[in-house]
């Protein structure tokens, strides 16, 4: 895969040479301003629903492998 990735990275290089410092960046295609709504509880998943696809769960919680190595 390393060879393929090098070719792809090379092909997108021209992008960094096109736009000058005066061009603003666009992160979102349609400009929108933020809106607020009343702080009320909407539709939320039950714990059972949220855990329905989990590979491992215990007492209504996701069961996660050890975070830290023993060493």
């Amino acid at each position, binding site marked *: 895969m390393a060879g393929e990735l090098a070719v*792809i990275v090379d092909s997108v290089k021209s*992008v*960094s040479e096109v*736009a000058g410092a005066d061009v603003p960046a666009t*992160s979102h*295609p349609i400009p929108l301003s933020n809106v607020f709504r009343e702080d009320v509880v909407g539709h939320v998943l039950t714990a059972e629903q949220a855990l*329905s696809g989990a590979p*491992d769960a215990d007492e209504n919680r996701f069961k996660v492998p*050890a*975070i830290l190595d023993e060493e």
Partner: protein
Amino acid sequence: MTQEIIRSTAAQLAEKLAAKELSAVEVTQAHLDRIAEVDGEVNAFLHVNTQEALAVAAEVDAARAQGEELHALAGVPIAVKDLIVTVGQPTTAASKILEGWHSPYDATVVKKLRAAKMPILGKTNLDEFAMGSSTEHSAYGPTRNPWDLDRIPGGSGGGSAAAVAAFEAPLALGTDTGGSIRQPASVTGSVGVKPTYGGVSRYGAIAMASSLDQIGPVSRTVLDSALLHEVIGGHDPYDSTSLQESWTGLAAAAASGDVKGLRIGIIKELHGEGYQTGVENRFNESLELLKAAGAEVVEVSCPNFQYALGAYYLIMPSEASSNLAKFDGVRFGLRALPEDGPMTIERVMGATRAAGFGDEVKRRIILGTYALSAGYYDAYYGSAQKVRTLIQRDFDAAFAQADVLISPTAPTTAFKLGEKLNDPLAMYLNDVATIPANMAGVPGISIPGGLADEDGLPVGIQFLAPARQDVRLYRAAGALEKLLEEKWGGPLLAQAPVLGGAK
């Protein structure tokens, strides 16, 4: 009877259902029978939803018998791309990492289909996480093009396009990040629409690149796409990028078929060199028909489109690498354990992602994390966002001269399965004409433009309109469809080879 049902458009089925000439159960069963007959060859479906579809159809028939008022498309069946989550059916995104996963909630578009009482036939195949242009990157085997089973149906939405082209469904939902609705439509002789960004809720579409992704209609006619667009469009508080617009008048525009005085801009950079001769010929033929019908055809130049593909292959992987971080082997989907050594979360995540993701997904995650990494961010992701601004400016200038723009949808007709699988760059080039619309958020449609002289395979014609002006797409495409079908003496798909031994 079955043949007559499956070859009807959604609009025709809706009429016959309303007139009680057909029952919803008959219509749904005919499509399920067709799937059973041909999908072994086509492989458009990853899951067939027989029981639920027939139950919904029976509900529609009962409600109609009671004289209840129903949605115009009630009882008209539909297929859903397996990137869109559904309660009661598995959602896999065509990935091993989500094999057998069931969503605990419905996507907003699926809720809308349920509200309209449209039976859902099943979930359609795609490139894994919608990453690809051929549906060969599905973990569950490629979909085949109904025009030639040795060829690709396009991608990522090859399953949805092949399903409608093979008469397995009159309608389907797709998602389009760089052309995944329009390019499959182009190579299968069907119709596909990418609405204005934010015009259709993305809630429940498994995200690839959030600033580019858009759900849209897949069908065999422009009118059918318009009817479906009116069902799924509209504001959704669950999608923070959803627009306030309501989408009406699309079907009326599709049916009007009038382009007199419409200014159509040919994008200089999106045809000619690099485009197959047969594609170019059909494109020019469409232009002549539109001119003869009274459209005013002008040439526009979008010089920065040449950088769109490069910028897309920085922005899309960047967003994808971030969106796919959630597949961690903890909350849903696959968990694979490392073969030896300590069972830490980091090593479990690594083993899970190594086992669960296919090569193209891994390639894009690596590219994305690279483009976003410290020291490279400005040169890659930052520059690509600036190119996005330049592309939007090109569109603004072009739309000052023209009401809609036109180009071939894809540079070539369908290629052979396996032909470009080992050359990612050649694969990426398929989307060169569709990507600019996603970069700018503008709507686009692909409709059949005829068959290429050299291989007899479908060619797609793309129209693009300014943001929020989806109605113009339907007006222009509806008109061209009518002109072409008059010339052909019927729809293009009537010329497709017969599948499954049907008479």
